[in-house]
């Protein structure tokens, strides 16, 4: 007998599917616990929980139409394969990662450190840029890189950028792990990543408030390389890119293609908009220098700096993106 669900499968492209269902095909305890779970397609749960669960996992998430959902919720033919949560259960899952099982047991599916817990992030699937580059000859690689720099993508958490940003992420994530480890020891660390290959060029560790990158920039300039310059602020430091950070970006824009600032659970990415003229960037660098001095001398508050920074983003002078997460 054909169920409403199988009939609908023919028309999936035309029917609105506001729900998603987790289908487990293996028996790891947590994956099995999620089997049949149905949540709204826009539930925040899907931002952090999406198969493959682990290496070799064949779980799937399938779309569900409003009609299918109604059928399952009312105990219709598909009810045995689906599980609908009450509003209270859904809130508990979305806010606290606690999932109530039909047998009354409650399991934590948000913890990422316990044995068997969810560890996988869709972003981990990327191939390192350096491995990709080795697979192409230089001419094809050049064309590929140009295409990727022009392709706009939006990630699941709403972050927007180019496909190139996404490809550079594994190298940046690797740098971030070390930068954050140094920040916990009250030391700033800077890492330079080649903007064209994703290769790590240099790393420096400084003091609690600063790290010198002058020689890194000088060497990159001599070698004709552009870099993504990653560095961290200690937990006590500013939770936005500082005037000094932006000054570096603007003054050395021939070398520094982008700046990554890592503070706690936030990664800030700033780029000077390409269309800014040389004269404009020189004037801007002078202004940022004045702001840096004012900050250093305590003449400008953090709130005032944030307002100024907002103004730069609002007027399109800088391209700025925040990523919240590990």
């Amino acid at each position, binding site marked *: 007998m054909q169920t409403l669900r199988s009939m609908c499968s023919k028309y999936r492209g035309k029917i609105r599917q506001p729900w998603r269902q987790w289908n487990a095909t293996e028996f790891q305890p947590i994956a099995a616990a999620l089997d049949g779970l149905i949540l709204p397609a826009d539930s925040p749960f899907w931002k952090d929980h999406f198969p493959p669960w682990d290496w070799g996992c064949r779980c799937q998430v399938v779309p569900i139409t409003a009609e299918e959902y109604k059928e399952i919720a009312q105990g219709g033919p598909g009810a045995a394969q689906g599980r609908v949560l009450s509003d209270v259960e859904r809130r508990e899952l979305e806010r606290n990662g606690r999932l109530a099982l039909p047998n009354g047991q409650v399991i934590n599916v948000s913890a990422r450190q316990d044995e068997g817990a969810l560890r996988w992030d869709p972003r981990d699937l990327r191939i390192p840029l350096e491995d990709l580059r080795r697979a192409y000859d230089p001419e094809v690689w050049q064309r590929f890189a140009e295409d990727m720099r022009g392709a706009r993508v939006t990630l699941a958490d709403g972050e927007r950028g180019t496909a190139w940003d996404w490809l550079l992420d594994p190298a940046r994530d690797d740098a971030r792990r070390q930068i954050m480890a140094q920040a916990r020891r009250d030391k700033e660390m800077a890492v330079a990543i080649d903007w064209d290959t994703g290769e790590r060029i240099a790393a420096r560790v400084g003091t609690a408030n600063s790290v010198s990158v002058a020689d890194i920039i000088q060497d990159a300039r001599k070698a004709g390389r552009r870099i993504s310059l990653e560095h961290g602020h200690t937990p006590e430091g500013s939770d936005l890119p500082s005037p000094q950070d932006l000054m570096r970006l603007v003054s050395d824009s021939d070398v520094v293609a982008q700046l990554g600032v890592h503070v706690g659970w936030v990664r800030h990415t700033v780029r000077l908009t390409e269309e800014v003229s040389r004269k404009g960037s020189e004037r801007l660098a002078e*202004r940022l220098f004045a702001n840096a001095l004012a900050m250093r001398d305590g003449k400008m508050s953090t709130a005032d700096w944030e307002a100024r920074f907002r103004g730069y983003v609002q007027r399109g002078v800088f*391209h700025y993106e925040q990523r919240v997460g590990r």
Partner: protein
Amino acid sequence: MNNELDAERPSPEELERLKRRAEYFRSLRPKRNLTTEELDKAIDEIIKEEAERDRMMEGGSAKS
């Protein structure tokens, strides 16, 4: 390493605040790409406004 970062995971409320802030900054961006002339003009305006603000603050602190 990941465990260390996970241990520092902000509370759900703080995480929500950070995500809202990220979305707020995204919403600030101009809706279209600006030309060099428009950006240079924007920089001039920024410089003028910030210098004016600095003067006002210095004036305020001189009076107090």
